Each structure stands twice: as C-alpha cells, then as structure tokens.
C-alpha cells in the first residue's frame, strides 16, 4: 500500500473524528429534535408541526424581516467604512500605523459584559452620545425606545464592533496589490476615485466576498446586541432569529421549536452565501 494514498486520511483523521463527534452528531440530534415536541415533560415525534408553526409565526417573520434590514444596511456600511479606513492606513506617508491598526481592531476583542453595560449607558436618552450630539445642535434621539432608532442602535453597535476587524482583513489584501497598477493608471490620468473603483475594488473582490460571507453568517445568527441592548424590543422591532432561538429554548423551554428556527437560519445563510458568490461572479 503506498503511503501517499493513506497519508492524507491519517493527517485529516483528528479533525474529522472531532468533527463527527462534536459537530455532526449534535447537528443531527438537534435536527431530530426539530421534529419533536414536548408533551408532559417528554419529547415525542410531532412530524412537521414545528415547521408549520414556524411558517405561521408572526414573530418569526418579524425577526426575519429585522435581520434582513439589519443585514442589508449594516454589512455594506461596515464593509465600505472598513475599506476606506484600510485605504487610508495603507498610505506610505502615514505614521503610527501600528497604533491605529491595534486601536481600530480593539472593539472586536472586547468582552461582552463590558460592551453591553457601556453601550446601554451611552445610548440612554440623556447619555453621553446624545450629550455630544447636542453640542452640534441635534436634539436627543430615543436610541433604545423607538422602533426605528433601536434598529439603528443595533447597527451602530455592530459596526463599532466589527469594522476594525474587517479593516485588518482588507489592509492585508491591499498590501498585496502591485504598486505599478496604480502608477500606470495615474499616467493614464485616472484620479484617485477612479483608481479606487477600477483597481482597488476589483483587486479586493475575493476579500470582500470572504468578509461578506463571514458577516452574513454573523448577522443571521445575530444575538449579542439585541440580547444585551434592547431585549428584542420595542415591540419586536429588534427581534432577531438568533435571539428568538434563544428565547424559544431557554425562556419558553421549547427546544424542538428552537431547533426548527435554527434550521431555517441555516437554509437562509446557505442561500445568501450562494447569492453572494453569484454576484461576485466566481468560485
């Protein structure tokens, strides 16, 4: 038996075994659970009941809609901001690069406990953000108590947390774009904006896709921000799929239903990732 044939399996074996035990098995178990319901404390087979209930559940559709709005608004804003920052940081003349880089990355490593306490204090109606806004003549914004602003708060908090993270990814990729591409372009008379759209963006396409898919997964499973800042309110306006899964399982004790929602999320992440691939136009 030649080594070259068995070698890959040996090398992949630890990962595959761990994957089977700790990922595949729980996934199957919770998939089975999604066809069960609790009757007098015991789980019994319920067919498609959880899924039909899901189909008729207003909260689920609201959560879906909210998640979609947050996704459509937040991901592009964050990606554009991250690209702008990465571009600025990529400038050779810039000093203190390392300092800026670390500072921008910091929000991604913050501990959730601090994050939730600080943001909920800052976003109060008389909190520091509204105080700062009043200096530039903007009247107090009801950040957490108005359906529209509550969504905005979630988007702002997410953007704060993940922009630097994506920036680091873009920065790495930017440093790999050959300098002569830009030189040739500026000889042809292309200004900075044109250079950005005709050279930088196409060169960054695979990275944007990569960051986009990670953000898609993150947004569809979104839980931390609504859980800590708004609790899904006011009136479900910031209810997300991640939060609804948690509530169904841990607050309403219905893990069968929670699993069904989870699988709906999986299907959607899958679809959205395929769409992103198609838009990006490559494999």
């Amino acid at each position, binding site marked *: 038996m030649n080594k070259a044939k068995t070698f890959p399996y040996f090398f992949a074996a630890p990962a595959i075994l761990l994957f089977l035990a700790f990922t595949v098995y729980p996934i199957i178990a919770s998939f089975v659970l999604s066809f069960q319901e*609790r009757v007098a404390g015991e789980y019994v087979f319920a067919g498609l009941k959880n899924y039909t209930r899901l189909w008729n559940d207003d909260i689920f559709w609201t959560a879906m809609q909210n998640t979609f709005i947050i996704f459509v608004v937040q991901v592009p804003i964050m990606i554009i901001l991250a690209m702008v920052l990465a571009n600025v940081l990529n400038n050779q003349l810039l000093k203190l690069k390392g300092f800026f880089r670390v500072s921008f990355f910091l929000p991604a490593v913050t501990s959730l406990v601090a994050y939730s306490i600080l943001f909920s*204090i800052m976003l109060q109606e008389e909190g520091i953000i509204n105080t700062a806004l009043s200096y530039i003549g903007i009247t107090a914004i009801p*950040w957490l*108590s108005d359906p529209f602003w509550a969504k905005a708060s979630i988007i702002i908090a997410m953007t704060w947390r993940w922009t630097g993270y994506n920036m680091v990814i873009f920065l790495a990729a930017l440093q790999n774009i050959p300098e002569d591409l830009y030189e040739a372009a500026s000889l042809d008379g292309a200004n900075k904006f044109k250079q950005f759209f005709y050279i930088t963006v196409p060169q960054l396409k695979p990275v944007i896709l990569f960051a986009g898919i990670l953000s898609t997964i993150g947004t569809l499973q979104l839980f931390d921000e609504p859980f800590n800042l708004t609790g899904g309110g*006011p*009136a479900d306006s910031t209810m997300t799929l991640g939060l609804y899964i948690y*509530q169904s*399982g841990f607050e309403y*004790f219905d893990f069968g239903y929670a699993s069904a929602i989870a699988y709906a999320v999986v299907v959607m992440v899958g679809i959205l990732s395929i769409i992103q691939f198609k838009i990006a136009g490559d494999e």
Partner: protein
Amino acid sequence: MKKVTGLVSMLLVLSMFLAACGNSGSDGEAGDSNKVTAWAWNINVPVLEEAAKKFKEENPDFELEVVEMGTDDVYSKLTTGLQAGGKGLPDIVLVEDDRVQGYMNAFPDAFVNVSDKGFDEMKDSFPSYKTELLSKDGAMYGFPFDGGPTGVFYRTDIFEEAGVNAEDIKTWDDYIEAGKTIKEKTDTAMIGLDLNGDDGLYRMMLNEQGTFYFNEDKEVALTSEESKKAMEVNQTLKEEGLVKETVGWDAWISAMVEGDVATAPSGAWLYGSITQQGKDTSGNWGVIELPAFEEGGNRASNLGGSNYMIPSASGNADLAYDFMEFFSTDKDVQLSAMEGGLFPSLNTIYDNEAFTKEVEFFNNQPIWNLFATEMENIPAVNYTGDYAVAKDEAVKAQSEIANGKAIDEALKASEERLKNRIQ
C-alpha cells in the same frame, strides 16, 4: 507512517491529560453522602454559608459547596441540565418567583416534592402567596425564601421642594396628581419606566388587584378590567409627561440616585441597590405603600423574590431537604439574610428588632415594619408555566400603547397572540 501515528497518539495523550486535569465527580450524583451542592447568586451566598456553619453544629459531617453564579447563569445552567434529563444539576438551586411555575410545568417531576418530606408542617410560617406559588396539585415543590413586598420608594428632598406630602397619596389618582405638582414645581419626572422593555409596574398593579396575566382559572386575562385599569395608570403617567424613559436596569437605578425621578414603585429588595449606588443620597429617602385603585382598597403586592428547590436528580435529596428545612425556618439564618439585604418571607421573625428599627438611610423611617405588615395581605396569583410568553406579550402591548395604540385594542391583540402561542 510512524510519525503520523505518533502525532495522533500524541493528540490522544494530550486529550487524556486534559480529561484528567478536570476534577469531575463534584456534581451531586456521584458525590459523597455528606456533601450538598448549591447554585445561587451573589448576595445569597453568604446566607447559605452562614446556615451551613450552624447546621454543622448538629451535623458535624455536613458539607456545603456553594457554586456562585450570575442570576441569568443559574437559569441557563438549570435549563440545560433539566433539558438533558437531569444531568449535572446541584442538590439545591435558587429560583425566582416568576420562574418557578415555568420550571415546574415544563419539567414535571424534575423537582422534589417537599410536602412528602414533611414541609407542610411549616406552611403556616410563610405567607400564603408564597406557598401557593410553589404548589402544584396540593403539594409543594420548593422552599419559600425571600419576598418582594412592594412600596413606592420616594425622594423626600424632591417631595419637600414641591410641597407634596407622600403620606397623603392613597390612590393611583393621588399619585398622578402628586406627580403633576412635582413636575410643575421641580421639573422632575415622577417615575422611571422602560415602557418598551419591562412591565414591572403593570405587574405590581395586577398583583395588587388580585389577578395577573392569567386569572384564578389560569385563563389568559390580559383584557380583564384590572388589566385595563393598570394600563390606564401607565398611560396617564406617560401622557401627563410624568415618565422618564429609562431603558434597562442600569438607567433606572441611575435616574433614581441622580434625582431625575421622584419615585420608584418596586420590591423591598430595591433597598440594597439604592443604598449601594446612591451612597450620597442617604437620608433623602422614604417609602409608602403602593397606592390603591380606590380609597381603602388593597395596597399589598409583590415584585420579585426567590425560592430554593431540590432537583429530583439530586443524589442527596434527603440531606438537601434536611438542610433546607433548617435554612428556611431557622430564625437566625433568616435574620442574617435580612442583614444581607434580602427580605425573608418567614413570618415568625417579623417581631424581631431588625424589622422594627428605624433606618437611617430612609430618614429614620421604620421601613421594614411597613413591608413586614404587608406580607400577609399579598394576594396569591397564577404565574403559570406560560409566564415568560405572557410577559413578552404584555410588554409588547404596553409598548404599542405607549406608541399610540388604543388600550383596548392593544390588549385584545396581545391576548389573541398569547392564546395562539400557548395553544
């Protein structure tokens, strides 16, 4: 080839090492027969430990291990353990009033029937609203611990400035009138409410009127007269501009200690938070009973409080019971809880000096006496197993009303949705 197997076996050895370096076996099931494990959150821990010390005098072999965790963490772990069929659970667990019936219904037989073990004899030492909360089909499944008798905490300095006498507030109408005067004279809001996130005031008002999300027959009762009246008070406060919107716990506490609001209707346990967060405001506080809906009506209600339960999966349920029976009925233990900022529901100690003394922080008002007398009048209500869903719907209705929907309409819609959700 050898190296590959080498790598794999190295990984295996490492995993074994990891498995070995955890100290398993400390979960009740396999534990030695003298050791009891408890899950509880911060201020409850010293009380348990104090009790264990005293219990040990009679039972020298007894050992208690308290695992300290955040309140929400207790539920996450308890739910996971129960869901997995009683795995990794402690012998004793602390559960709040509003969660008790949810657990008892979702996981029948998951908690030890303490009536069977003789706890019914002590029943009279506790207010009936507590014992009924823990009962199912006539048997009790937990030990009543602290209670949340309600009152209106108010800032004496603000009331004085506005020339309002708090003792004159007898009804919710009085309360609203007082609020208007305070608003006019001092430009301070009367109350901090999280209209989109929590319905504490609404719940207190329901309980005060002897009902809840569910009526005495455990039917959904969001559209009851009582419910409408309570929502009306809520809404009048808002419409008259007496409400400061405080989103979340932190903002609420902040508003109170900063003097941004004049009153806070709440459970007795609020004492701990105010004294801790508002050290500089000592002497500027007072408490009155919750206003009634009509002159002379009931003013006793409850918000919060907790109980100890023994999971059936405990391998040491008998010892856990003996300890908890001692814990629940020993006067000194309960008085030590009192010192720690928890209001005991054991009524045999209410004549103690700890309850009659004047409290400096509250301008020398004997506030504990007020709460103690209130305890026996608190109406028992049905939380039911669907409390969490019902609360979600009630908060939604409250939020919709605050944003302009008519009270009847919003409550009706919520009631319909709630009925659908619990089938």
